[in-house]
């Protein structure tokens, strides 16, 4: 039984067209969803795509660079509220608030990440957990600013672009899909670039990476902050799609679900967490008739996954591939 990490299998270089075959098919299917499916399915698909971005960005921080974090939901929430407040209170247009929320979350994550990432072992994980909880408390208790437990309403949809109306479900869907492809594509490029190799080195053996000349502290903070920033911008997309924000949407249970999605798919593979996000979101929706059971089932599922194949779905795929050879 392995560990929860996978690395890009460098044994046999995969021809380019094969590497993009599965994601390509998925993308085409996704583009066709609003054409053939009911409004409800489209709505669920939007959520799935949002979670795919969250799980994918989480993979950058934890799957590639290494440290386990439990506050991704908090970054998602910070971006959501920042974007909402910028448009409501400061009359920013969405298209300005959107990138600014990403920048704000990046800076925030960098500031807390820099000291925090020096912590060893579980100290860091516990600190992120507490941080996530703390953000939730702040959001809940700042009623004047965030509406607190009453929620934040009155968020507008993104302004039209080239005549496309983003207030409709279809418009929102394609907007979200567009940015998902953009962000996840960027992440794909990043993790396969030199930058990604540095992260992998740090994850594999931090001391050796440091001795080889890699500024491990800087790279870890960058990965952490970039992952956070993407989560923040995803939050912005969510805020202007759902148009109602409540602190519980961003509490630690959300962070935990993101972790579960990433683990189901397989940390450190990027495509794994994306697939994991889709699977978990759809199953959660199927079970919406029994909400109390949903989290119970998924926490049990996580434990079972940890017992059987900590490297998730992609781990199972790799095992099968190895047997074929």
């Amino acid at each position, binding site marked *: 039984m392995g560990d929860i990490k996978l690395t890009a299998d460098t044994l046999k270089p995969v021809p380019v067209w094969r590497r993009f075959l599965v994601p390509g098919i998925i993308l085409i299917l996704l583009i066709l969803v609003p054409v053939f499916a009911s409004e409800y399915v489209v709505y669920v698909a939007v959520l799935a795509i949002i979670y795919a971005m969250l799980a994918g960005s989480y993979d950058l921080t934890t799957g590639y660079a290494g440290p386990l974090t439990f506050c991704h939901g908090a970054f998602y929430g910070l971006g959501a509220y920042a974007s909402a407040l910028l448009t409501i209170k400061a009359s920013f247009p969405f298209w300005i608030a959107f990138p600014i929320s990403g920048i704000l979350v990046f800076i925030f994550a960098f500031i807390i990440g820099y000291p925090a990432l*020096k912590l*060893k072992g579980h100290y860091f*994980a*516990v600190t992120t957990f*507490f941080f996530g909880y703390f953000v939730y408390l702040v959001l809940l208790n700042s009623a004047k600013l965030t509406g607190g437990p009453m929620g934040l309403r009155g968020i507008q949809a993104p302004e039209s672009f080239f005549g496309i109306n983003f207030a409709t479900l279809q418009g929102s869907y394609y907007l979200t899909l567009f940015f998902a492809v953009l962000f996840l594509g960027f992440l794909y490029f990043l993790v396969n670039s030199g930058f990604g190799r540095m992260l992998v080195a740090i994850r594999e053996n931090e001391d050796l990476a440091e001795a080889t000349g890699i500024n491990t502290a800087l790279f870890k903070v960058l990965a952490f902050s970039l992952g956070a920033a993407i989560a923040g911008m995803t939050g912005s997309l969510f805020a202007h799609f759902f148009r109602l924000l409540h602190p519980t949407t961003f509490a630690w249970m959300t962070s*935990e679900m993101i*972790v579960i999605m990433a683990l189901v798919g397989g940390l450190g593979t990027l495509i794994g967490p994306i697939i994991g996000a889709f699977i978990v979101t759809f199953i959660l929706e199927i079970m919406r008739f029994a909400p109390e059971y949903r989290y119970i089932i998924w*926490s049990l599922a996580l434990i079972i996954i940890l017992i059987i194949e900590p490297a998730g779905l992609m781990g199972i795929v790799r095992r099968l591939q190895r047997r074929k050879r």
Partner: protein
Amino acid sequence: MLLQQIINGIIIGSSYALIALGLNLIWSITDIADFAQGGIYVIAAYVAYYVVTAAKLPFILGWLCAIVIGGGLAYLIERFLYRRWTGKSRIQLLCAIALFFLMANLAILLFTPKAKIFPAYVQGAFNVGGFTVSFQRVVVLLVSAALFVVVFLFIMKTRMGKAIRAASQDRLVAQVVGINIHTVNSTVFVLGGMLSATAAVLISPLYAVFPAMGDLPLLKSLVVVILGGFGSVAGVLVGGLGLGLAESLGSVYISSAYQHGFAFFVLILVLMFFPKGLFGRV
């Protein structure tokens, strides 16, 4: 008013200290930050609640059932889950958090999110210099203090206690000198489970029983462990009481909404200057 705050602070602080004591022993021996203790805390509270209100049995029995179930759950978790992944602390941590997640939601499912009022052990109060102090709170203080003494003596005087201390300093060497690490692990987990259960039962009459009741005490107790130091009973006591007092007084003089955040700030401050915790050791 001030005296009341101080007493509240000490009481809540002693509950942190009790949980933290168990967490401390577990963490220092197995390198696991056992989030599952938060779940055990919640389950134990409900067990005691139902024993006392539904079965209408005396409080002592409620407490006994709670610690049996608490200790038992902790034992099973260690034996059949954590032990599978010896050395793989990331998986163990993920499992601990998953268990916490599971138990908290199980409570929501089984017992509804509505808070339940736990009846007090003792009625009545007495006056101290113009302030009213309920006997309930006195009982909590006395029991907590007694437990700390008991655990302290256990750790210091008994053979198992010595084995625990040895293992917490160096797991490998402890095994080399013949200490059965499995027995030690099981013991600290059972102890931790019983301590968390006791903390829950002591606090419930004062603050009600609800599924999310474990969240904050668990986090605060983890902070206390990090601050108070590994293998140090005194450190945990000081840290726990200190945090409880700071929160209680802070809620009056600074802000009641952010008293929970206080622990977080303290954590960040301490870790900035002492990345290995106040008393060293990762």
